[in-house]
């Protein structure tokens, strides 16, 4: 293509991008079409990938197309396998895409569509994509080492320890926040409970099918499982409309929490092939299909955003979660913008599949862009709803009032008009008894998604089917995270305990399996129970803690990356990772500080405990005060971990830059790739 034509094309992308971002940012008082968000996203990603990631590849990382990757050098046909870049891209995206980019943007929509959208775009292009890309490349250059190993090698033993604690805490907090979302989505919903309950026998059936009937035919069994899930959704409608049967599947939040805790324990202790693996396959199948469908639905329906660009709740008085736009918008949306958890995937299976070094750019940077697009779609799904409806679904009863009329009056007084009758009609339309106080983000996302889908296909007549499809999709996603996370946490505890007493580290010794499973389930189960009992909705406390722990892991990853860049002698380009690091430190410190010490009882754990001490009542008062203090202690521990990893990294950087320590990177030695000559031939 002639050079001038290329320049013209990129100039057009810049013009469209600027126009779209300006439209999103500057429109006030009138509704805009969701396509502006899509156009802005595509232009930002295109420019970020074409120019910024190319700059990082060439100048900072100096990607070498002649250097053999561990997949080539250590090829064993098992863990290390040179794989086509598109295949690795799909594999990596399937691993990083979870419920986070769906839930976070939905919760953050209480500030309006603008803050979340801008953070998702800027955060991913300048932070999240960069983190995933550099960690993937550094792992590739270190024979596929994990993030915790790289932290230990490059920053020191303290860095490795902090990374370990960060991973454990993020797993525990993530699991309880996820479980709470499922509980809130399924409470008093016989249709939802039936559908989700059916996914357990379906997964077991798939496991038996793959192992006994048609060994290894995973895709085939996933399609079969998907068809069975669709039948379960359809059957759920009959269940909900048959009062005698519906009663079997109607549960309160506390009962559901207990069921999920028992389920988590069983999933951790059962053989992988029976439940975990088939559910993982089914979830991946549904996930990839639904994300594609949602993208198509948005383009076909081109819905209008009813949520204003900014709401009155940027001052921190929001009902969904307490806290001002800074830092809480940036804590609430983690996975769609920058997620520390991704660094575990980028230094896990993916580096062992990369065929050529330069492909890390497409896989690392590119897959995170796709994840960010999912977050944009979630923002759209939440913001196409009338703001009154959004707040009626997403606000806890403790804030807006117990009865539908009281809740509708409170929300209407905020300037977001809604009536109890409107909400009742909507609940009937989606086949639920009520949609008031369904906090956690999942029901809002499901209503928004059903809205978009029903406009594209089937109209309002199938709204209920789409709603329960969306609930099933999210719950399946989340329960997969719960299964896998509980098991990963169990292994991590077993690894640690194995240093104390060897048999405890044996992953095949049943007493150890049961004991460590109970330990990890008790950890997240405790916080889940606390969240379910919290009159403010639980997610108000748990999601910010999850965001803080996730960003802590991102801080560890960016500290590792910055240290390596300095040791590579590329200090002049250190801003590439240092700027997102500084931003995240500011966000994490501020959020943790406010969560612990804020005078506002809705925000600060300690002030809430003090308020309960002075004016609280009820039989569980002492437990609630203890819970607040425990949450404060957890937030405090996270801040201390941030401070420790930063201090260790700063010490390492100072020693290297002052010449007191040799700038030595612990990379695998250079070996020329045979793929380069093969391609030339």
């Amino acid at each position, binding site marked *: 293509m002639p050079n001038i034509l290329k320049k013209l094309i990129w100039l057009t992308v810049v013009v469209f991008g600027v126009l779209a971002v300006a439209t999103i940012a500057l429109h006030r008082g009138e509704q805009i079409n969701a396509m502006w968000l899509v156009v802005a996203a595509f232009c930002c990603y295109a420019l970020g990938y074409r120019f910024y990631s190319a700059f990082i590849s060439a100048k900072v990382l100096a990607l070498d197309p002649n250097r053999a990757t561990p997949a080539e050098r250590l090829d064993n046909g098992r863990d290390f396998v040179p794989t086509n870049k598109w295949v690795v891209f799909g594999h990596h995206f399937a*691993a990083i895409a979870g419920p986070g980019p769906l839930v976070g943007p939905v919760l953050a929509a209480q500030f309006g569509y603008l803050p979340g959208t801008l953070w998702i775009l800027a955060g991913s292009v300048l932070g999240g994509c960069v983190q995933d890309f550099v960690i993937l490349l550094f792992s590739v250059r270190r024979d596929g080492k994990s993030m915790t190993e790289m932290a230990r090698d490059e920053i020191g033993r303290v860095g490795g320890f902090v990374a370990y604690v960060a991973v454990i805490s993020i797993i525990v907090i993530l699991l309880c926040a*996820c479980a709470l979302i499922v509980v809130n989505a399924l409470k008093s919903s016989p249709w939802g409970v039936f559908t989700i309950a059916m996914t357990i026998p379906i997964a077991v059936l798939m496991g038996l099918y793959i192992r006994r009937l048609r060994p290894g035919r*995973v*895709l085939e069994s996933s399609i079969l499982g998907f068809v069975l899930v669709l039948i379960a959704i359809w059957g759920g409608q009959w269940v909900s409309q048959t009062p005698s049967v519906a009663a079997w599947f109607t549960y309160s939040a506390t009962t559901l929490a207990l069921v999920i805790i028992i389920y988590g324990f069983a999933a951790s202790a059962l053989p992988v092939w029976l439940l975990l693996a088939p559910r993982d396959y089914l979830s991946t199948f549904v996930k990839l299909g639904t994300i594609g469908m949602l993208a198509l639905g948005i383009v076909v329906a081109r819905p209008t955003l009813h949520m204003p660009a900014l709401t009155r709740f940027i001052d921190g008085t929001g009902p969904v979660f307490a806290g001002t736009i800074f830092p809480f918008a940036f804590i609430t949306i983690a996975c769609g913008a920058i997620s520390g958890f991704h660094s575990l995937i980028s230094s896990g299976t993916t580096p062992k599949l990369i065929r050529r070094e330069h492909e890390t750019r497409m896989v690392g940077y590119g897959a995170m862009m796709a994840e960010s697009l999912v977050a944009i779609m979630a923002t759209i799904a939440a913001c196409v709803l009338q703001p009154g409806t959004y707040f009626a679904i997403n606000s806890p009863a403790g804030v807006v009032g117990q009865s539908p009329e009281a809740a509708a009056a409170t929300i209407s007084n905020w300037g977001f008009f809604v009536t109890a009758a409107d909400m009742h009609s909507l609940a009937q339309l989606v086949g639920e008894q009520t949609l008031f106080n369904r906090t956690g983000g999942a029901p809002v996302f499901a209503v928004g998604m059903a809205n978009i889908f029903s406009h594209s296909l089937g109209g309002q007549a199938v709204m209920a089917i789409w709603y329960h499809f969306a609930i099933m999709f999210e719950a399946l996603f989340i329960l997969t995270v719960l299964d896998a996370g509980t098991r990963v946490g169990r292994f991590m505890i077993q690894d640690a305990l194995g240093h104390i007493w060897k048999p405890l580290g044996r992953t095949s010794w049943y007493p150890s399996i049961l004991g460590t499973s109970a330990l990890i389930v008790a950890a997240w189960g405790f916080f889940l129970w606390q969240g379910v009992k919290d009159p403010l909705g639980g997610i108000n406390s748990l999601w910010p803690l999850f965001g803080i722990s996730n960003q802590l892991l991102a801080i560890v990853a960016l500290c590792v990356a910055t240290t390596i860049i300095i040791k590579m002698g590329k200090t002049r380009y250190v801003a590439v990772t240092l700027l997102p690091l500084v931003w995240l430190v500011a966000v994490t410190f501020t959020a943790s500080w406010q969560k612990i010490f804020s005078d506002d009882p809705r925000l600060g754990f300690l002030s809430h405990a003090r308020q309960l001490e002075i004016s609280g009542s009820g039989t569980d008062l002492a437990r609630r005060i203890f819970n607040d203090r425990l949450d404060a202690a957890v937030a405090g521990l996270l801040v201390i971990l941030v401070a420790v990893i930063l201090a260790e990294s700063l010490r390492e950087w100072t020693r290297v830059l002052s010449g007191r320590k040799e700038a030595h990177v612990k990379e695998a030695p250079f070996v020329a790739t045979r793929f380069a000559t093969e391609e030339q031939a």
Partner: protein
Amino acid sequence: MTRRWESLRFASAISGLSHASRRIVSLFVAALREVFDESAYSRYLQRNSLTPSRRSYAEFLGENEQAKARRPRCC
């Protein structure tokens, strides 16, 4: 002559398009097979010179159980 040249160009464009779409579909299927561990099973069979069977699949699952169970699923 011009008409023949145009029909040749048309045929070549169609062939190119069909080649490209075949390649996209095969890449898509390959990605799905990798995501769903079917490729890993094929590699296992090849590495150990085995044929697909219940027993070989059970052995494959046994070998991969630890790796599969330790693989985190992102939030």
